[in-house]
């Protein structure tokens, strides 16, 4: 399995500061510290990368995510307090922490899997969540989701819908939309640490 190392402080180079500064505290708060804190090891995700919309050609990668807290704190002086507030999350906040952490990790995935591409906007009411190109009628973007648990199975349900066939899943919704030219999915699970980055369109 190919291994990719990524340092969170590099995200500021790959994406605009405004997108990075608000998502990093949530990433730190969302990921269980575990081995990283005890032995100084990076946080490892198994990343299932589907570079084309076809069912074939997927690659399994090992994403080793690391960060230097002092360097991150130099970019955002309130980082530690913000992270602590998010870690002490109460029920009402929890879903927002997960949402925000998934955006932050999606920025990492975009920087690695779509090199040179930058997020320019974000949406609340219409997928895809993160936009790479806002041209009306020819949108390009990445739909994002995070789950605390459930692993690859939960992410696949998000992607393609469940066996009951009640919904088309995120992939189906993106494909149905005629105003989207290019779409990707960036899905993350905290426990076990697994991720999907898949092109679903064209």
């Amino acid at each position, binding site marked *: 399995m190919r291994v990719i190392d990524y340092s969170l402080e590099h995200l500021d180079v790959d994406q605009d500061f405004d997108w990075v500064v608000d998502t990093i505290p949530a990433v730190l708060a969302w990921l269980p510290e575990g081995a990283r804190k005890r032995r100084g090891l990076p946080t490892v995700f198994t990343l299932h990368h589907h570079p084309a919309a076809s069912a074939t050609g997927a690659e399994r990668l090992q994403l080793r995510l690391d960060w230097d807290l002092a360097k991150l704190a130099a970019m955002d002086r309130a980082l530690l307090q913000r992270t602590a507030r998010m870690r002490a999350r109460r029920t009402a906040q929890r879903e927002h922490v997960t949402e*925000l952490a998934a955006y932050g990790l999606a920025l990492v995935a975009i920087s690695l899997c779509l090199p040179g591409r930058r997020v320019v906007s974000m949406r609340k009411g219409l997928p895809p969540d993160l936009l790479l190109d806002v041209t009306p009628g020819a949108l390009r973007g990445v739909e994002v989701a995070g789950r605390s648990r459930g692993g690859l199975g939960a992410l696949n349900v998000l992607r393609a819908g469940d066996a009951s066939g009640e919904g088309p899943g995120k992939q189906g919704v993106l494909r149905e939309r005629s105003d989207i030219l290019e779409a990707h999915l960036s899905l993350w699970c905290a426990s076990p640490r697994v991720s999907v980055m898949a092109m679903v369109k064209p």
Partner: protein
Amino acid sequence: MTSERYQLGVGEAGKLKLRATALLAEGGEERAFDALVLLHDAARAEARALQALEHPSAHARLASAVEQCACLVEGRDPTLAARAWGQVLDEARALSDDVTEPMLARLRPRYPRLVAAFVSALRKSPRVARASASVELLQGRDRQRYLRELEALRGRFPGAPGLWWSTCRLEQARGRPRAAWDAIQRACRLDPDNVHYSAVRLLLVARALTAREVDTWLSETYAGIQRAPPEVCLVYALNELERARRGPPASRSTRLGRAQEAVIQGRSRPGVEPAVAQSLRAAQLLISARLEGHEATLDLLYRAGLGEVVVTSPARHRADAFQCLSEHVTQALTRHAA
């Protein structure tokens, strides 16, 4: 090619939404309210961005309407979200179902959920639903119940500017100008385009703030008077007139000069409401009389077309033309905003 202004506008809206999500994730009452304000700002930024497109397609118009509504739904504002939902339905008519269905897939369950929650909460708040037009008349136990219902509603829908407006009026009626000021500030932050909220806020300045704070507010308002709506120009002029009456003689002519400029600005706006135009004319006549060293009499209000106001005012207000006009404007703006 997409206009640069559109791209910048949509980018700005996106950053506001992300910031709001971060504040909600951090938690805390003040940060949560700031997040709701940012989501309202994002909805307006989306609307402005659409205006930058020369001929937006039906697709682009619907996408913008959906996004505005989604921001207001997440901004816990059932009233402005309802207005945006109307726009969504209107724009969707221009497109076929197979286009609109996937575009509404995310919003369709969320908006009715918010409305259902609001309707249910209103059902449990009969006094707010019934008596909001006449908050000032509530007394004793009725007022206490109204207050409790309003607090419960605000707890669930803190992004609804109308609930903060009702709070402002209730606090005024309870003789708590500082609390009224805090409430109107929140209403204005959520809905800065509402000229009546802005005008009422300016009316409250002198009652709720210290003399230094009042001066700061008036200076800031005067700095933007060339773009201010007529209602704000009118209230600004009344504030300056009042301070010219009570303040040191040395600053009198400066204050009257600023009041006059505000009235001229207000009257020059296109489509000024007739009632506001009459009050602006009355204020102009009062200012001119003061500047010329004449006594400002009730005749000036008659000449401005406010004779009916003079004859229906309580006797204590009829003794003073300025007070009569000031009371009339306060009541008219409060009624209008309600």
